[in-house]
């Protein structure tokens, strides 16, 4: 070896194996149990929804990178995760053209208008979900009944609770919520499958407990207070735990690295905000479910929360410099 060929670079010369790809593909892997469960519950249509969302998100990522004259990273896994999350957030009978529009909104309005991965303020999948919910309210709120053969549709437990009251829920049990044998979007059904995936993310240390714990905890306490006041009007906090998108939102969307605060203090405020807004919308809002709105609203506060920590840190450094 000749010293002329020596390569010069700066320390450190070893790097961890983690990459954007490994983070994203692990999140996708963590969503696999919930996806598999949805295919079991809703059959072929669920698989089609999932594939359409994933493929169109990756395609739009590639197109938009090309339009913006950027080197394409469409296979880095972030578009895959966005597509997968979007699929888990819609009913299995949503027409394909709506899925494609949703995917476009997620990638274009959710991500690329801000500058691409890392710069987006709002969770792209949730931007698309809320867009679809507002644009096509009927299609987005009639869910196929799981394990049914004749494609009959019905409202979700939260929807029934909102329009017809607690008594109309009938024979719904917590077990239905845990295993997912209830009406809902692909990923809003089986709590157990979602927890299994979340456990993987904790194990790989891609997420911490702060946000899920504060978010779920505040929903539990808030709905619990009203359940104690009037159990004939308000559903039990356990009902709120296993229905709707709470678990999916708390473990997979509120914890999105790009759109959540960096400091623990910020994360606690963020989680509490997500939880309280979810509970308020569920109890008194115009929509039966509030997780998407709650997370998106709190996403908007993240730059402010980060700035607060920054101001504190700077003040601390200034104080130390002065006492020196």
């Amino acid at each position, binding site marked *: 070896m000749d010293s002329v060929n020596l390569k010069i670079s*700066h320390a450190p010369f*070893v*790097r961890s194996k*983690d990459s954007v790809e490994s983070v994203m593909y692990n999140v996708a892997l963590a969503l696999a149990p919930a996806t598999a469960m949805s295919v079991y519950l809703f059959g072929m249509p669920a698989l089609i929804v999932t594939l359409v969302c994933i493929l169109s998100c990756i395609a739009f990522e590639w197109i938009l990178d090309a339009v913006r004259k950027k080197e394409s990273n469409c296979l880095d896994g972030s578009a895959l995760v966005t597509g997968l999350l979007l699929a888990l957030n819609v009913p299995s009978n949503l027409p394909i053209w709506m899925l494609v529009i949703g995917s476009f909104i997620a990638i274009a309005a959710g991500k690329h208008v801000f500058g691409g991965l890392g710069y987006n303020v709002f969770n792209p999948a949730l931007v698309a979900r809320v867009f679809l919910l507002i644009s096509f309210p009927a299609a987005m709120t009639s869910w196929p009944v799981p394990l049914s053969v004749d494609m009959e549709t019905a409202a979700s437990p939260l929807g029934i609770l909102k329009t017809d009251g607690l008594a109309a829920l009938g024979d719904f049990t917590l077990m239905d919520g845990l295993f997912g044998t209830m009406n809902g979007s692909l990923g809003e059904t089986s709590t157990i499958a979602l927890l299994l995936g979340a456990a993987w993310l904790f194990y790989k240390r891609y997420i911490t407990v702060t946000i899920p714990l504060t978010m779920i905890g505040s929903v539990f306490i808030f709905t619990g207070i009203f359940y104690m006041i009037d159990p004939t009007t308000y559903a039990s906090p356990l009902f709120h735990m296993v229905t709707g998108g709470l678990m999916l939102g708390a473990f997979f969307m509120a914890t999105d690295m790009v759109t959540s605060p960096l400091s623990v203090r910020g994360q606690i405020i963020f989680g509490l905000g997500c939880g309280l807004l979810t509970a308020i919308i569920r109890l008194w809002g115009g929509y039966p479910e509030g997780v998407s709105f709650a997370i998106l609203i709190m996403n908007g506060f993240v730059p402010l929360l980060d700035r607060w920590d920054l101001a504190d840190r700077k003040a601390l450094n200034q104080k130390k410099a002065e006492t020196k």
Partner: protein
Amino acid sequence: MKTFTIGGIHPPENKLTEDKAIEVMPVPAELCISLNQHLGKPAKPVVKMGTEVKKGQLIGEADGFISANVHASTSGKVKAVKPAPHPGGQYAMSVFITPDGNDEWLEGCNTAPVDWKKFSKEEIIAKIKDAGIVGMGGAGFPTNVKLSPPPGKNIDHIILNGAECEPFLTADHRLMLESAEEVIAGLEIISSLFEGKAKASIGIESNKPDAINALKQLGAPKGIDVIPLKTKYPQGAEKQLINAVTGRTIEPGELPFDKGCLVQNIGTAVAIYEAVCKNKPLIERVVTVSGMEITERKNILARVGTTFKDIISFCGNTTAHANQVISGGPMMGKAVFSFDAPVTKTTSGLLFINNKGLEKSKERTCIRCGKCVDVCPQGLGPWLLANVAQLRDFDEIQLLGLANCTECGSCTFVCPSKRELVHWIKYAKALVNNRQKRKTA
């Protein structure tokens, strides 16, 4: 098990040479002894072309308070005094010596060991200064200065740094095993400078159980605590080691003596023993030659001034895949730009690697995962420092704690977006320094 409280990482240890006994490397055909082997001003040459020198003879004289003496590492004739490649990445004034093959010591050097207890405190400091001893862990701060804290600073805890937290390096590990008595004696000499009132301990990471045992047996009767530390990088950094061993925190802007602590490297302790008891100047050190791309991995005792070229042929040449050579450890070392660069007093290792990441790694945008914040042992926000450095906002970056960064590289190690975080921070530091120099000038 003890360790430091904030941050830290655990890179693959790769201690491939931990079982290889130290081999003495023979005198090479030519030596290139740099006059810039320490922090501060380079030494002034006191020899010129044609001067006959003996082993251990002074060839460079300390220039000012923060500087250190440099000695000939064999006997021979001075061939030239001229700039030569330096492992730090620049050229430095160096003394080239053609050995005469006799390897003959200067009269009075390297004597039979005498008892250090007969020397006064001032005599010991003078001997350390004369021997040109500097911190051998990497920074190269003159040891005599470090051992003379300003009046009013009360040292109550002396710590020997046996952490050796950098992957691959095993030089201190071997020294602790093979020269355990000298290590302990060196620590006793340092303790005596503080009237023996300071507590003496040795912090060793738990991945070196044999070294922990060896030093425990020798140290226990003398009241020296050997403290096993949980293996974690950067435990060998001064501030982190103090925190791990004593629980004290060195705040930004403070030096260890502000918290009553004094840290010395294992190699430095041995050098202190040899200088005080054997009147032997610092002319050789243990170097770990390792990495995946060298045929024979070894721990060698190399003379200061041995060029990397000679070390490569002593270790059976590099493999065909080597594309990068690092002086020091893989986390904080420097890439070598020439094999004509020599071993200095601070060269702890020479690593031959195939850095695949060089072509592959492209900086991606930050995905705000927060890992750099989690691992920063100084509690900084490396992603933000790097962003502000890229924006060249040098007022803002100082408020964010730029000066507190110890450049350990943990943030760059963990970053999934492969951002060159510590590089941007070093860049900002350099520019901030330049700006301050211009202001004062």
